């Protein structure tokens, strides 16, 4: 863990603020900066800290809840769910698989074989 987790919102970014909050919260859970059972700031508190509308934070929280990463309990606020890490790990694996498919697919279209791609990747990882 790298200390207290934070969320930052760039109002000038193309990604809408609710999406930025959603993504950063998801990454914080994936990286275990937020542990299962950790209490999140209330919608009102996070919205006032970030200077965004409460609906923006509420939407991000609703999306995280829909993914099963957090659970909202009315006045008691929102908490990271016990199974959040399993869900996050699955989502992380899925994201990696999709990125790899896109990468390999684009190189295959340009005529590279799978063994060439694999060898280049291993070399790149070893050198970097």
């Amino acid at each position, binding site marked *: 863990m*790298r*200390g*207290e*987790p*934070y*969320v*930052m*919102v*760039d*109002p000038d970014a193309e990604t809408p603020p609710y999406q930025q909050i959603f993504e950063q*919260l998801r990454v*914080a859970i994936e990286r275990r*900066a*937020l542990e299962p059972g*950790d*209490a*999140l*700031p*209330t919608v009102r*508190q*996070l919205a*006032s*800290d*970030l*200077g965004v509308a409460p609906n923006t934070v509420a939407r991000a929280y609703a999306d995280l809840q829909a993914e099963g990463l957090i659970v909202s309990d009315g006045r008691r*606020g929102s908490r990271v769910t016990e199974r959040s890490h399993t869900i996050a790990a699955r989502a992380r694996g899925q994201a990696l698989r999709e990125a790899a498919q896109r990468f390999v697919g684009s190189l295959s279209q340009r005529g590279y074989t799978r063994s060439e791609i694999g060898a280049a990747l291993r070399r790149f990882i070893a050198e970097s």
Partner: protein
Amino acid sequence: MGDYLATLLNVLRWFLVGLWTVAGAWSLCGPVGFSWIRDGFARVQVADRARLDRALELRERLEGSPAWLGRALGVLSLAAAAVAASNRVAIDLLVAMTTLATAVFLAAAYSRLRQIRGMRAASLKARVRSAVVPRSLFAVVTATGLCPLFFLSVSAFAATVMVAASLSIVLLAWMIADLPALVRGDDVAVESFVDDRLRHQRVAAILQLATTPGVFFFLLNFESMYASPWRLAAFCFTSVASCVIPFLAGGFGPRGPSAEELRAWAGDAR
């Protein structure tokens, strides 16, 4: 007994004249705006002083320099000293009125802090008021704010103003404990450190402000205080609370970063 009481009241009155004069002169001629906060943080021992100084500079820019608030408070203190010296207003009422004026100034300062915009970063850990100052301390200070009610039959108007002023100050401390974090995101870990310490420092100081005038109010009603055990108990309770608040609140000075905060400083140098 009458002469003795008159002398005691006179001593107290001149003590307050001196106190208000010194406070007024300090507010008008002393360090302005943010410099006293910067001085407080000068005692904090950190390896990377430059980062802390940058965070303090940023905080100063965000809050602005509320010099006019200090000046206005100085003028008010000097005016209170002059009125007390002239002995034309009941001194307990004057204490109650200056406490009320203090509450108004604090409300103005709170309003300024509440209107600061442009923050882009926030902690993902839930922030609770009791982490700033324990709830029990708020309860104790609220109880001391109600104590002048025992003097309603002695000095109804002054006691009412005193209660209203003290409770308003406690309410403002409660609201300041829950102010949005002022973290712009240039150096999140250090800005959060400054925000936490300033919040704690301010709330503790304001709770002290809510209690101390009550002690003077009771002393100025010395004669009637000894006529009732409740009033005497109220005085003792308020006096003890006023003395122990700095210790219960964890001290007024900004403490250095904790081990966890230092890890955050090292890991997050944005």
